[in-house]
């Protein structure tokens, strides 16, 4: 693969670092590991496979048709279905944006001990400045590659020398720990699944492919991005789950703060490890803040057929750029109210789970439409995998809200 192609893979790495390993994933995996050990590791693996299946479809649709998924949803499914999709997707993505902006501020608090509320406005301005001034490719490279610092979590787990046999046994023989109920376990499973398949990941990935002017020649790049980026994100998620299962579970510690996700790495690797994990969390949440701020505007602009894109000059795509500013400003203002960012994160991933079919059904339909895809329609394997996941998505979507109520949001 030539250097240009290799550099093109950063879209997948950024999407995985900022999209897969974002504040939602960090919190959900750390909390699950501390409470249930590795019992729900299979959900992460299942979620990674699911996001790979659908992100590959979304990237292929963008490369073949030159249009992102949301652009085609209204055209293919009609205005009413498209609008329902837009409402649900925008709400969940905006909620995630609030969590990510607060997540960046929390990462800065970990390094400075300056209250995160003071960082939030600065983070909002920085995110906007980067979207406004920095080229899309540079944005991907800086945050995608810096996010790779989170690999330190895997090194930390190895350094702790846990009982690997026990961790694998927990993963292979999922069980409800003493004092926990099956509904709570199911609720956390759904949270992990929602965190893995957050809708904005595909909006950003497919819109990013259009921004990078992918064509049919980039289909291999699409596959490489998807099948390297997301599994890498999954590997890091499992490492974090293993860390909290090893350090926190025996001490009956529950995870309620982002700082706790960094603590086991500090225990294992000292200050260097701690510095790397904080840098990694900063980069991953900052990348996710960029993605969600752009995705809020991508979805609305693409639905209404406005001129859109980071590459497009603001005077030519005024509504797109204005919407980015409005979304960011609103996220900053809501964050400044002092709403618990971890609670916002938890609700954003669970509500993501409830809205999943609205995002993924249209992708499957469009990827099977020869009018858009020509001979690049889904193959049998993609359709079988996509259909299996759709059944799961519908079931998950139906049980999410009742489970949230029944378990008091997993409490």
């Amino acid at each position, binding site marked *: 693969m030539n250097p240009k192609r290799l550099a093109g893979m950063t879209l997948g790495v950024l999407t995985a670092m900022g999209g897969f390993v974002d504040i939602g994933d960090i919190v959900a995996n750390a909390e699950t590991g501390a409470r249930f050990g590795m019992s729900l590791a299979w959900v992460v693996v299942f979620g990674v496979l699911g996001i790979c299946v659908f992100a590959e479809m979304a990237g292929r649709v963008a490369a073949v048709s030159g249009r992102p998924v949301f652009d085609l949803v209204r055209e293919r499914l009609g205005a009413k279905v498209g609008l329902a999709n837009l409402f649900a997707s925008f709400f969940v993505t905006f909620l995630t944006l609030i969590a990510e902006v607060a997540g960046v501020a929390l990462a800065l608090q970990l390094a400075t001990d300056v209250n995160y509320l003071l960082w939030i406005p600065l983070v909002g301005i920085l995110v906007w400045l980067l979207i406004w001034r920095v080229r899309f490719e540079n944005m991907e490279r800086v945050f995608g590659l810096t996010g790779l610092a989170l690999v330190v979590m895997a090194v930390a787990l190895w350094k702790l020398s846990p009982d690997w046999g026990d961790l694998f046994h927990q993963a292979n023989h999922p069980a409800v720990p003493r004092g926990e109920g099956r509904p709570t376990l199911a609720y956390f499973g759904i949270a992990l699944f929602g965190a893995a398949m957050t809708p904005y990941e595909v909006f950003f990935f497919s819109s990013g492919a259009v921004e990078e002017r992918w064509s049919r020649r980039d289909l291999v790049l699409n596959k490489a991005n998807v099948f390297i980026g997301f599994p890498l994100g999954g590997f890091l998620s499992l490492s974090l789950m293993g860390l909290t299962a090893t350090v926190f579970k025996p001490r009956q510690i529950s995870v309620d703060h982002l700082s706790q996700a960094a*603590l086991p790495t500090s225990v294992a690797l000292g200050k260097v490890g701690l510095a790397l994990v904080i840098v990694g969390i900063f980069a991953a949440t900052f990348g996710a803040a960029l993605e969600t701020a752009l995705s809020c505007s991508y979805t609305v602009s693409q639905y209404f057929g406005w001129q859109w894109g980071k590459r497009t000059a603001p005077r030519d795509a005024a509504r797109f750029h204005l919407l980015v500013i409005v979304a960011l400003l609103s996220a900053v203002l809501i964050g400044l109210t002092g709403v618990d960012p971890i609670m916002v994160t938890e609700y954003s991933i669970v509500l993501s789970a409830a809205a999943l079919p609205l995002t993924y059904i249209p992708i499957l339909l469009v990827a099977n439409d020869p009018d858009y895809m020509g001979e690049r329609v889904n193959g049998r394997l993609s359709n079988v995998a996509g259909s299996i996941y759709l059944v799961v998505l519908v079931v998950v979507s139906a049980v999410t809200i009742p489970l949230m109520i029944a378990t008091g949001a997993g409490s």
Partner: protein
Amino acid sequence: MPRLALAGLVVVAVTTSCVHPAGTARNLADYESKAKNTAESVLSAVETAGIAVDAGTRDRAFPAFVTVVVGEAESDATAAVSGFEAIQPPNATSDRLRDQLGELTDQATDILADTRIAARRAETSDLLAQTQPLQQTAEGLRSFIAEHS
């Protein structure tokens, strides 16, 4: 209209599920279960602070990081205790349970406050001095949880 009512119901249900009201305990078993949950929350905070203090005193974590972790642990413990204290004990037996847990949680919040002060001053010797009290408090809370499980 029915759609609107349904949407309203969902919003109310979700909103109410987000809130953790102090509420009331219907009987001793219910009160005991709430006491056990409170002890678990405080134990989690104490143990988290213990790990952070250990990392801080062995120069494995930055002082700012230790301060943040301990400060959050103290807030969590205080919130859990004040939530429990707002619950009306249903009878005289539960009054004794309340006193028993209160002694442990008072001790825990005091030690966490001392730990936070030492962490903020970045005084390793003061921080080190908190290690044993944190461990003892954790043991006391663990015994309480085992006794009421």
